């Protein structure tokens, strides 16, 4: 089990190797990447920032919960911080398990919990030069740049 906040690019293949043990029959990887648009607006990159001490501790709790709930010690998560260009990975979750269903369920649990409770924020940079903090609790994020939500 491992959960880390990282500044350098995430090496998904390394995460796969980290969990890919001989007892396993199934390995899953989920990678969240920077998409080229959001709500129809062209995105050029995303800046991730965190309450690092708390984000790190919440990530570790989530990994521990996943491990217990789904029955595998082989859960590894990395979340990247800083400025990410298009296509770069912001988060990667690797799980291995003797059976495929719990491997997949654990992966989904981890990403859903991250989205709910890990104190990480992102600011999207748009093609028109503006940028905005993303607020998933608002349906539309098309306010003007810098505006507080």
């Amino acid at each position, binding site marked *: 089990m491992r959960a880390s906040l990282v500044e350098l690019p995430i090496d998904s293949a390394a995460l796969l190797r980290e969990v890919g043990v001989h007892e396993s029959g199934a390995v899953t990887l989920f990678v*969240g990447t920077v998409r080229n648009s959001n709500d129809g607006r062209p995105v050029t990159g995303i800046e991730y920032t*965190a309450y690092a001490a708390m*984000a790190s501790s919440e990530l570790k709790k989530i990994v521990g919960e996943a491990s217990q709930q789904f029955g595998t010690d082989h859960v590894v998560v990395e979340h990247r911080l800083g400025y990410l260009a298009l296509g770069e990975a912001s988060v990667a979750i690797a799980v291995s398990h003797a059976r495929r269903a719990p491997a997949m369920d654990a992966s989904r649990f981890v990403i859903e919990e991250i989205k709910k409770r*890990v104190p*990480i*924020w992102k600011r999207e940079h748009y093609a028109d030069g503006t940028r905005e*903090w993303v*607020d*998933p609790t608002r349906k539309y994020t098309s306010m003007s740049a810098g505006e*507080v939500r």
Partner: protein
Amino acid sequence: MNVRVLLFASYAEAVGSDSLQLELPSTARVGDVLTEVRRRISRDVPPSPMMARNAEYAELDELIHEGDEVAIIPPVAGG
């Protein structure tokens, strides 16, 4: 007592700082930090965000102790 308050992302931008020192009565609770920040500093911090005390999510009625770090948590957007 002296309490360190952390702000992040849009809240830090609204307040113009990512940390504040607040002087609060020794009976203060987590919710009081929010009330004071909104009263003294900025109404741009919304009335009911998530709060944390010493890097753990905290209820508004939790007591604060000298030296605690209280954070006002904007809607998270990790992943």
